[in-house]
């Protein structure tokens, strides 16, 4: 087994210890630079373009297998699906008729109130290229990027609800951070009560934090985006409340939720277009002058 195991007769290069020191310091610098200051984004962009053809090539056998599988679908399955779709369409068309009339009504009301309306525009359909193998980050890569006019911050939905947000755009691909990622927050509103709150991802799931223990929220409530952040348009279903704990002595309720969309399972996603510009924030109130003398005495004491 010990082939080509000849010892080194002359000392070439650095000693292992100094090599390790060098590599460790470089990687620590890279880690901090990447995570805290985002210094490596350019490099990542360039490398992602290089990797794109390889990703496509690796994806190809899987895609071909899926196509062949679709081709050999049985006729009964098709018929069943057709019937199911037809009945669903009937049910939906009735709802749609009601919705369009409601939409008109709402738009009139909004126009009366001179509010900005979010017209529903078509988004960009993206296919999930791969999910990052890194278990710490809940991110996926989709096959649309700068070439399709995507920009960081755009919301991403699937057919059921909100999936996440575009966080990094590369020339041909884009990175979507899922709502279950630890650093992801979504402003939501409880559809039943109209109470606004923030939905936090905690790495693998979502929960509502900082809701008073006495707040009116119960199992089964649907949380939809509130649309007041200027990013997500309002009314996209996000999560359903699965459990509410009100621990005695704690001032906040513990609200666990289940995301509506197939956050980790959907293959096709829609990237919604940016919203119309929000009205500018009112100018901040002038800060009251600080009592300077008191601070000086504190420093001395």
């Amino acid at each position, binding site marked *: *087994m*010990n*082939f*080509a*195991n000849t*010892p*080194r007769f002359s000392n070439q290069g650095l000693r*292992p*210890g100094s*090599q*390790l020191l060098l*590599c*460790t310091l*470089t*990687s*620590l*610098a*890279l*880690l*901090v*630079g*990447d*995570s*805290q200051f985002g210094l*490596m984004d350019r*490099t*990542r962009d360039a*490398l*992602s373009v290089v*990797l794109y053809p*390889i*990703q496509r090539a*690796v*994806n190809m056998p*899987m895609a071909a297998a899926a196509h062949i599988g679709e081709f050999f679908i049985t006729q009964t399955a098709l018929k069943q699906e057709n019937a199911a779709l037809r009945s669903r369409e009937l049910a939906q068309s009735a709802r749609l008729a009601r919705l369009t009339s409601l939409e008109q009504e709402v738009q009139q009301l909004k126009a009366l109130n001179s509010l900005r309306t979010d017209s529903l525009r078509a988004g960009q359909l993206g296919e*999930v*290229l*791969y*999910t*990052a*193998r*890194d*278990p*710490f*980050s809940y*991110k996926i*890569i989709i096959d649309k990027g700068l070439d399709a006019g995507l920009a960081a911050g755009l919301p991403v939905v699937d057919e059921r609800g909100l999936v996440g947000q575009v966080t990094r755009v590369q020339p041909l691909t884009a*990175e979507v951070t899922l709502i279950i990622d*630890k*650093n992801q927050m979504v402003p939501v509103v409880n559809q039943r009560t109209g109470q606004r709150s923030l939905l936090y991802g*905690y*790495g*693998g799931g979502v929960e509502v934090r900082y809701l008073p223990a006495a707040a009116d929220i119960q199992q089964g409530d649907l949380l939809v985006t509130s649309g007041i952040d200027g990013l997500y348009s309002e009314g996209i279903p996000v999560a359903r409340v699965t459990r509410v704990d009100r621990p005695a002595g704690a001032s906040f309720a513990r609200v666990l939720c289940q995301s509506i969309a197939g956050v*980790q*399972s959907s293959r096709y996603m829609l990237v919604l277009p940016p919203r119309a510009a929000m009205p500018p924030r009112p100018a901040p109130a002038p800060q009251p002058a600080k009592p300077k003398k008191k601070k000086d005495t504190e420093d001395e004491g």
Partner: protein
Amino acid sequence: MSYDRPQELLKPVKRRFITLTFALALMMELLPLPVGSTRWLPDFVGLLILYWAINQPRRIGIGMGFLIGLVVDVSTNSLFGQHALAYSVTTYLVMLRQRQLVMFNLGQQALVVLTLMLANQLIMALARLALGSAFVGAGYFLPPLMGALLWPLLTKLLLLPYRHHTL
């Protein structure tokens, strides 16, 4: 122990072959596998680095471990330097005891590999925790076990092209 095993004479390893194995392992990383499978699938690139560092220490050293780690960082979309840090530390540990490690039989090597792969995961977990990620659970330490179980098979496979087939 390997003393009682007949030592084989093998053909010299080509640099091309080493590159090819790493290319294949990286393609495994990029495969669109079902979501659950990444929880137990071993880190093939990490295994290969250990294999070549043990068996070809003059080709794959600490510097190469670092560079390959950077490539893995990009392809797995993790933080820059995360895999590079882990791989350079484990290749250093291999280098410290490399003469002993090649003399071990496959079972003993698998145990060492298990420890080193666990060290890999531990370093990466600590780096990510220090930079503010949430802990992903004890399942994160399952892949090294699979890697160690696959070690004998991997060794046999990688030796195949270098046996003299004279029948």
